């Protein structure tokens, strides 16, 4: 999923207090899974804003609503459209995609982000999410035993490891970050494919990545 973390409270509050009535809009997909912007988190943030407003003598009314996904037009139904019309501003708890999409749906409203979008990741255990994919546009993980060197190696080395791999950890953060190349080595060893790592991987074509410009996918067969 796309992972995100809620922004510092003060930053969000500064946006909310500029308006009299604000809609806090949650998203039921990625940010729900990484516990940053789902229905529950909307409720918590709403309570916090109400408490803070009372403490500081600000008058802010918070409306709460959560839709299945903020990155699909079909979920911006009549209910949410009506609610949006009643408020002065929207605070979206969706990822960066959702915030922008919401902005496009309600062009006359300012839409503030309430989370900082981070990475494509997986749930390692409840409460812990870890980066797995860099969206490089040309997936090569099978050559590395299923461990992506682009996303999981701090230097994106295709012919790693570097000299900073120590006891399976990466020198950039030896307490928390595993060395991707140790993982690749272990995996390939288990698979009996270590000899494949002796091949020199050629230069990567980064034009499929964001470096080539903002990307679009078109399926002509699917367009109505």
């Amino acid at each position, binding site marked *: 999923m796309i992972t995100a973390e809620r922004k510092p409270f003060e930053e969000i509050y500064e946006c909310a207090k500029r308006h009299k009535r604000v809609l806090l809009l949650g998203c039921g997909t990625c940010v729900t899974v990484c516990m940053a912007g789902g229905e529950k988190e909307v409720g918590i943030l709403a309570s916090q804003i109400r408490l803070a407003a009372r403490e500081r003598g600000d008058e802010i009314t918070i409306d709460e609503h959560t839709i299945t996904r903020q990155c699909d037009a079909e979920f911006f139904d009549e209910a949410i459209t009506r609610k949006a019309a009643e408020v002065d501003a929207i605070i979206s708890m969706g990822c960066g995609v959702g915030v922008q999409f919401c902005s496009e749906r309600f062009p006359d409203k300012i839409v503030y982000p309430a989370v900082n979008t981070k990475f494509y990741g997986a749930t390692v255990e409840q409460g812990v999410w870890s980066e797995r994919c860099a969206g490089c546009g040309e997936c090569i993980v099978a050559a590395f035993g299923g461990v992506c060197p682009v996303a999981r190696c701090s230097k994106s080395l295709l012919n790693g490891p570097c000299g900073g791999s120590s006891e399976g950890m990466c020198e950039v953060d030896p307490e928390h970050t595993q060395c991707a*190349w140790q993982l690749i080595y272990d995996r390939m060893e288990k698979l009996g494919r270590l000899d494949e790592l002796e091949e020199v991987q050629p230069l990567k074509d980064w034009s499929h990545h964001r470096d080539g410009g903002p990307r679009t996918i078109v399926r002509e067969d699917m367009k109505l």
Partner: protein
Amino acid sequence: MNATLQKSGSRLEAVLTSGQFAVTAELGPPKSADVDVIRQKAGYLRGVVDAVNITDNQTAIVRMSSIGAGVIALQEGLEPVIQITCRDRNRLAIQSDVLGAYALGMRNILCLSGDHQKFGNHPTSKNVYDLDSIQLVMMLKGMRDDKVFACGDEIRNTKKSPIVEPRVFIGAAANPFGDPFPFRAVRLAKKVKAGADFIQTQCIYDMERFRKWMEQVRARGLHEKVYILAGITPLRSVKMAEYMRDKVAGLTVPDHIIERLNRAENAEEEGQKIAIEQIHELREIPGVSGVHIMAIEAEKTVAALAEKAGLLPRPA
């Protein structure tokens, strides 16, 4: 080792191909535009080494560029080994820099991945890593021997112009102490396959582990395909030894060395003694073609060390 025609005409290459034990050292450029610092350091090293490595934003701290300082080093009568990391430059910038370095008279290039910018003084910068060190070696070899850029274009100004390729002596780094240990010799093999001419290793304190690594290297016949210069960094204090052991990734310092420094009256002298012993040991290990003395911010001490270790005079 085949006595092939010189690939680059570099002095370092000449010393190595003639079978003599080579000596290189490191010169850290200043964190400013101060040229005198370089001239001073160059003065300490002139006549003491065959070539001197000019670091490239080492530990991700901004310093004068390797090529810039390299020009000064040349003026001061030293032969530079330019270092290029993959952290700060993409393939365009690197190839461009290599053409420039060659045009300015530099003949040796060391290819490195580069310390992550998190360690340095600009941790918020974007990092590049368009290529890794092995791809960099391959790219330089392509420029020199196939006379093409990474994209395949010939290295000539126009279709009618002559090809003028950068004929550089290509180096890579090796760390005999990093993990995964069984893979280290394989990685060296990859660098050799990619086209490395010489290797400079991370500084050695654990002689046992280094010998084991050299065994693996020799088992693959790599010592006959590439010149290996063993890294030495003289320890100057117990604190320095402990720092190297604990804070520098990919480095081990055995306890017996720290004990010696602790027991010694003058730790700096003891550290130099240890370094000299190491140099003698390294000369005896088959496959080791020289030493690379990395006296960080202590370039002044290299001359005395080289002399006591019997490395002087250097060949003409």
